[in-house]
């Protein structure tokens, strides 16, 4: 997969969201579900909308599908304004979280439904639905009812039912959410494979950051109805631009302003991935930041161990600051619970992030962290 080869500038956007806003409830009791969302999703992209529940990602998806009308803003599909079009007039299809298979129709009839509605001839739609079921490896179950299928099979029928219509964009609303872990991982691979084969733009809603990171070309991270950051999985992971993204995508040490000031001489919140930290047994290398502290917990995870460390002040007393470090298990020599430890990380591994804590919020503008530049200590 590697780095995203797709950037907004180079290719035609399949979906454009302009200033999208959605308000639910009455005037007296307004709930803003989505606010000021600008987004361009490129053609053929596997694009994920990632965020915790209630962050507005599903509402955005439903607005693209046409199930909800935006309170403000516009939706463009391949440059064409579809903001006010009904779902049946939009060339997009959806895979629903509960699959929404028609229980009174067989698997084959479910897959044929869209074609039948559009008036495709019987023999033609039979053939296409058959092929589609073949490609999701369900050809032999065509005559069954959805209730006779397993969860994974239903999910593949839902996928086939949507894809058989060859939409411009496929919308997936947490399609793997109801499956158990092993099946979910299998289907992640399969879904990605299908997407590569058909070349259709996928807009994928998930709250699972691992899923988003492993499958997507790009990710938009949602929080409180707004986009916190848009970028490739690597961007998002390595350079979270806000403390929310840093905390939500993977695990991060968020170093508060006071600690940052002490360590780097900069009065800003910094993010530091635990796996970038190493144990210092002898020398500290050039360009590394080094701290010392006391081990308060050791979690054994197999290849790795997770250490919880309380940092010392310069004068040797214990500060309140804690840090999480992921280190190779075989490097764990001379470290004991309650004992002293020294930690170090390359200076560029720590980045300033904007705080999205509403109480101390200074800015909601995504503040890009330059890969090379960072914020030197």
């Amino acid at each position, binding site marked *: 997969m590697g780095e995203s080869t797709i950037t907004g500038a180079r290719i035609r956007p399949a979906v454009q969201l302009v200033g999208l806003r959605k308000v639910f409830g009455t005037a007296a009791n307004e709930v803003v579900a989505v606010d000021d969302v600008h987004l361009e999703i490129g053609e053929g992209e596997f694009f994920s909308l990632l965020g915790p529940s209630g962050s507005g990602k599903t509402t955005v998806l439903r607005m693209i*599908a*046409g*199930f909800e009308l935006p309170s403000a803003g516009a939706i463009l599909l391949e440059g064409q304004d579809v903001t006010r079009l*009904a*779902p*049946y007039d939009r060339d*997009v*299809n*959806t895979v*629903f*979280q*509960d699959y*929404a*298979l*028609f*229980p*009174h129709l067989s698997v084959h009839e479910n897959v044929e*439904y*869209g074609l039948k*509605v*559009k008036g495709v001839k019987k023999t033609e739609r039979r053939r296409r639905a058959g092929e589609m079921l073949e490609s999701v490896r369900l050809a032999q179950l065509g005559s069954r009812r959805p209730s006779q299928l397993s969860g994974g099979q239903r999910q593949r029928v839902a996928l086939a*039912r*949507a894809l058989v*219509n060859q939409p411009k964009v496929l919308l997936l609303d947490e399609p793997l959410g109801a499956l158990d872990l092993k099946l979910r991982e299998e289907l992640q691979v399969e879904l990605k494979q299908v997407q590569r084969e058909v070349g259709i733009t996928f807009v994928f809603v998930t709250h699972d950051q691992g899923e988003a990171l492993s499958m997507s070309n790009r990710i938009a991270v949602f929080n409180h109805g707004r986009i916190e950051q848009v970028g490739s999985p690597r961007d998002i992971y390595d350079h979270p631009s806000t403390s929310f993204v840093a905390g939500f995508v993977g695990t991060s040490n968020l170093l508060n302003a006071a600690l940052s000031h002490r360590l780097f001489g900069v009065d800003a919140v910094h993010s530091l991935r635990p796996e970038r930290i190493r144990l210092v047994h002898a020398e500290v290398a050039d360009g590394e930041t080094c701290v010392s502290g006391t081990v308060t917990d050791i979690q054994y995870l197999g290849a790795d161990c997770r250490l919880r460390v309380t940092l010392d002040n310069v004068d040797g007393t214990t500060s309140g600051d804690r840090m999480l470090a992921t280190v190779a298990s075989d490097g764990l020599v001379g470290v004991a619970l309650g004992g002293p430890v020294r930690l170090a990380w390359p200076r560029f591994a720590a980045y300033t992030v904007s705080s999205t804590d509403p109480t101390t919020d200074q800015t909601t503008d995504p503040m890009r962290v330059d890969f090379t530049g960072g914020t030197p200590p």
Partner: protein
Amino acid sequence: MSERTPVGGHSAPLRGVNRLFRRHRRLGLAALLTPPVFWLVVIYIASLGLLIGAAMFRLDPRSHKPTTELTTENLRTAFTDWDFVNVVVRSVFVAATVTVLCLVIALPMAFYISKIAKPWARRGLIVAVLMPLWAGYLVKGYAWKAMLRPASKFGIDKDGGFLASVFGWTPGFGMVAVILALTYLWLPYMVLPIYAGLDRLPPSLLDASGDLGARPLRTFRSVIVPMLVPSIAAGSIFTFSLSLGDYIVPKVVTEGKIRLLGNLIESTLLAPNQPLAAAFTLWPLMIIITYLIGMKRLGAFESL
């Protein structure tokens, strides 16, 4: 079965009963089920047997009381005389027409209440649908008669009833009146199961249908109606059997001119000719059996 010591609080005899039932699960089950099973067997099945038996007795022509002499004459009369079969055919026609009309009215009505009306309005509308059930059956029958009364040159009130005086037209006291009044009476029994069925319908299915390109009417036809089949079948059991058995409303709104199966049974019973009345009663019984079997196939009983 876990053998836990009973927690305190129970008196000793109660504990004894508890223990008894815990040891002998079947005993508890028997105690629970005996009354309803007794009711089922004695009241329902035995009375059905009596009904069939009663149809076999000969009537004493002088006292008009059933004798113990057995005959098949009543059954032959009830089932082979074309005049009576004609009444049966008419009754089935009325019941079927009422059922179809109820369906045609109830479907959009229930759909509006369940999917379109605002949540606060929904409750009010359901109450409005149920409200007529609180009014007396006879009151409603005579109310229809009053509304349907045609204008007359010679009456005290020459304008006629509501329909005649307001719209200048009334179907009068005929078949249309029967069907209208019965449709009005039994409509709530069709609306409620369909409303419940719609309520159970996952909204994502409607989204999915629209998503796949179906316009609302197509969605209604291809998704909503097929999914409502069990509910419709359940509702139709009410409307069909209630219409088939009704005899007062037909009498009231047609001035006694049109007779349905229920009227035939009533007049025979009052003649009094109980054996023949029992034989006639086997007609609705058979029709309803057939109907129920048909509806069972459509899954009506999952929706009751």
